């Protein structure tokens, strides 16, 4: 079946350097540095990546960081909580706009 997303494409990620090696090298070296242990541990960064992957709904990233979070020592409970954080922020981002609606209605409606 034709599909835009193919699991095997994830392994080809480095090939995006074909059109511009220098930029790809910069990106991948920056990317590797981002995920090193720092003020946050590699496990914490992996859980953030997993949450962001769900927020941006990137199937490649969800596969990659489901494996990565396990390997960095997270378990399903921690990973699920991370996804709920993404969900809460996405949902909250809609709901907080309800204040804009509320103010609009307050201006328009008698009371």
């Amino acid at each position, binding site marked *: 079946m034709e599909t835009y997303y193919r699991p095997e494409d994830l392994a080809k990620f480095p090939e995006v350097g074909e059109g511009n090696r220098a930029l790809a090298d910069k990106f991948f070296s920056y990317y590797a540095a981002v995920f090193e242990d720092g003020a946050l541990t590699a496990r914490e960064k992996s859980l953030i990546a997993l949450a962001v992957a769900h927020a941006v709904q990137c199937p490649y990233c969800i596969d990659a960081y489901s494996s990565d979070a396990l390997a960095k020592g997270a378990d399903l*409970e921690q990973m699920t909580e991370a996804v709920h954080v993404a969900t809460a922020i996405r949902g909250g981002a809609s709901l907080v706009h309800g204040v804009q609606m509320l103010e609009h209605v307050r201006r328009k409606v008698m009371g």
Partner: protein
Amino acid sequence: VSAERLLEIGRLVAAPEAGPRPTTTLAARGSRLAPPGEQLRALDSLELRDADGRPASFDRSVAAAGFEPLRPGALEIFQVNLGKLCNMTCRHCHVDAGPDRTDAMMDDETVDAVLAAVERSGAHTVDVTGGAPELHPRFADLVERAVAAGMHVIDRCNLTILLVPRFRHLPEWLGDHGVEVVASLPHCRKMNTDAQRGNGTFAKSIEALKLLNAAGYGQGDPRRVLTLMSNPAGAFLGGCQGTMEREWKVSLERDHGVRFDRLFVLNNMPIARFLEWLIERGQLEEYMRTLLAAFNPSAVGGLMCRNTISVSWDGRIYDCDFNQMLDIETRTTGEERLHVRDFDPARYAGRVIRTARHCFGCTAGAGSSCGGATT
């Protein structure tokens, strides 16, 4: 080590309260994968290629890393597998240990031959494993005599055995003898621990760790070293040992008031019950690709086969515990089926280490051994 005594211990550990048992042994089920030759065939029949597109070969990979052929360094660790009897049946067990394995227990003559070989080996450490090695009737005797010979002794402990009434004295006793406890705990939380080792394991392990803490283990005393050993709870590589140790120390102390000295992280080997699990889940090929892709040339120098001798319950000699389970015996010039009673350190030092595809488990990522990461 009488047959009656073994049967009595077998009955003791087969009791439901003796330990979580999420599965049964390949041996008890008469599984197709029970014979080591079948396990090797399953690995060899995979269509696996190295980075150069050639069929994956461990010998070639280590040759490219400068080890051609793979030879040992100085012998440091004398690892003795007292037998396959265990109160647990963890899903990933590469030994295929379990409460039915009274068929594979070291006899008295072999225990004596091991002790004699230890003395002439030049090793500084005796690493006692199983099964649950504490179940062996000669465990205490072996430990005492190895300690008396000036050896550092390691007990590879599954933790839950310490809650069986007959073995409650062990934390104090091991401490009195200066024995390092290397305790299996796949994860610092319940979910993955129980997934691998059976429901209820985490709670029992925490209880056992508290007993060890109460006996002085895990507080920085060099005579009471408590090392935790983490195998991943599935088809993924072990994490960064240093980072995980820091996180586990915080987490276990905060959540359970438990302390330990250090953490070893190792990869699961595609052998015995873990191999069976991979095949059942259709994950074997992907797992082997993960190991191959993570091949780390700098992990070769620290491979445990280079500083270890591994002796099986029946006295045979192997380059490591994994080769032992696959029945890949050590070969020194002109002799096969080497027995520990004939152990000759000089000839052992001159051998070429035997390898197969499972060896990629020890060179993946940060490297993996019974002593944790090798880089």
